[in-house]
């Protein structure tokens, strides 16, 4: 019963926080770039508008096109429930690290299929690119997380937190793995050095190209999936590498402080993402390998430091 209530609270919070994080990033980006930027609650308005619209579906599509957003949404939602928010208590015995990484691979696979299914030239191109990027990002993501799994002697995401005595980000191995993980998060989210989430016009688009054929409620679902994935990865990064303000016991006052920390962490992540998006230019597609190579090399270094037990 208790678990069900917690699950419900977590789901509601997720559906509320995910669009707000997206709104915060966009707003901050606007401020940094000297524009006003859309309001923080703009994603809600976007979803509301999209839900009221009719779907237009290409004649070329098959059933894959219809189920892809739903499967992707379900997979991402499941993955997001595994990530601890304010409590590292292991009520979620299923939150396995490998399962988490491969649950994130399902939406990628489905969206790539959907991009091919609509038989538009942009869709196919973007699908192939998405697969290329994910083939590089997946091992990097796993390796960065394994760096923390090794000292914790567990693959459970909940156990990674507080697995070692020191705060990971303040140790050399943790810092290396944290930077590596941040690079992967940026790649996974298709943010600027890898892909530009704001443009539909260029031949360089990856994520936007795949969902080009979607409209109406389906597009709203796809947006929501992306936002939830974003908040999940950001929270994982923050909670695993800088586990400040997590509650270890059920207590109202501690819970409030933890919620405050949660919001502060999200704000920090929004600032970091907005800054990288503004300061960096998009890389050429063939330079993506170099970026992922950097992440891999940093993770390997971190593993080396961890494995020698210092």
């Amino acid at each position, binding site marked *: 019963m208790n678990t069900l209530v917690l699950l419900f609270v977590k789901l509601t919070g997720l559906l509320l926080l995910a669009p707000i994080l997206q709104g915060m990033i966009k707003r901050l980006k606007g401020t940094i770039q000297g524009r006003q930027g859309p309001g923080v609650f703009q994603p809600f308005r976007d979803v509301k508008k999209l839900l009221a619209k009719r779907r237009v579906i290409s004649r070329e599509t098959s059933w894959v096109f219809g189920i892809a957003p739903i499967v992707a949404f379900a997979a991402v939602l499941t993955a997001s429930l595994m990530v601890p928010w304010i409590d590292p208590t292991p009520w979620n015995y299923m939150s396995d690290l490998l399962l988490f990484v491969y649950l994130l691979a399902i939406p990628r696979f489905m969206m790539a299929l959907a991009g091919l299914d609509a038989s538009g030239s942009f869709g196919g191109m973007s699908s192939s690119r998405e697969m290329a990027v994910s083939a590089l990002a997946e091992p990097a993501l796993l390796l960065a997380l394994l760096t923390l799994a090794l000292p914790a002697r567990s693959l459970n995401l909940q156990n990674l937190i507080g697995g070692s005595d020191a705060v990971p980000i*303040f140790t050399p191995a943790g810092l290396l793995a944290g930077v590596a993980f941040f690079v992967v998060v940026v790649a996974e989210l298709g943010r600027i050095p890898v892909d530009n989430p704001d443009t539909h016009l260029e031949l360089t688009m990856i994520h936007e190209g795949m969902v080009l054929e979607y409209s109406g409620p389906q597009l709203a679902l796809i947006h929501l999936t992306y936002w939830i994935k974003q908040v999940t990865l950001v929270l994982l990064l923050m909670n695993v590498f800088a586990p400040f303000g997590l509650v270890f016991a059920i207590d109202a006052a501690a819970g409030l402080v933890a919620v405050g920390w949660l919001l502060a962490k999200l704000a920090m992540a929004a600032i970091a993402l907005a800054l990288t998006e503004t300061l960096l230019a998009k890389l050429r597609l063939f330079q993506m390998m170099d970026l992922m190579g*950097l992440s891999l090399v940093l993770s390997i270094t971190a593993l080396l430091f961890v494995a020698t037990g*210092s």
Partner: protein
Amino acid sequence: MQCYNNVVTWMGTIILISGFLTVLFRRFWNILACYRIQSLALAIATWTAGRMTGNGHLEMIAYATLLVKAILIPSWIRHVLKRISTRTEARLTVGVAFYLFSAAGLLLLSHVVASRALYGLRASPEALTEVLALVLIGLFQMMTRREAVTQMMGILFIENALTLAALQLAKGLPMVIELGIMLDVLIGILAMGILVYRIQEQFDTTDTARLSTLHG
């Protein structure tokens, strides 16, 4: 004391990360930015070391580092780059991926050497590993990047690594030596900058591979 070690190791890690970043970048400006970050981290580490151990001279050295390595030398290199302004990208002789993984290989090598060297001692091999790797990466950069400017920067990276080594392993060098080294580096870089400028004037390129075809 524990806090001191933490800050110095943390800054050492930042220097290592920016060392890897220099391998990734091709543009001179980005490499220069990496050098600035390194010098800043080094200054912070030195300052903290000075504060925690009560060594007043380390604090002085930190300010000198900040002035010379984070402001004077980068500005000078910037000036030289603007004067020669031929190309903004450093040409590589090998691919970036190969380059990166060679850097990782160098790190592994230095780890093996460091743990052998410190075997039986209580000191952790991390610091020595980082420093050795940074020196090797700097040398590797000088070998694989043929532009005269990047070779100049390679020396700077090696020098930063050695200063870090002194800080982490020996808790800093005597003030006279530190300041002397800093002055040497400053003069050396000034001279090298002028030399690079002359090379550019004479040969219309700073690509060192082409310098063998000397003008009569």
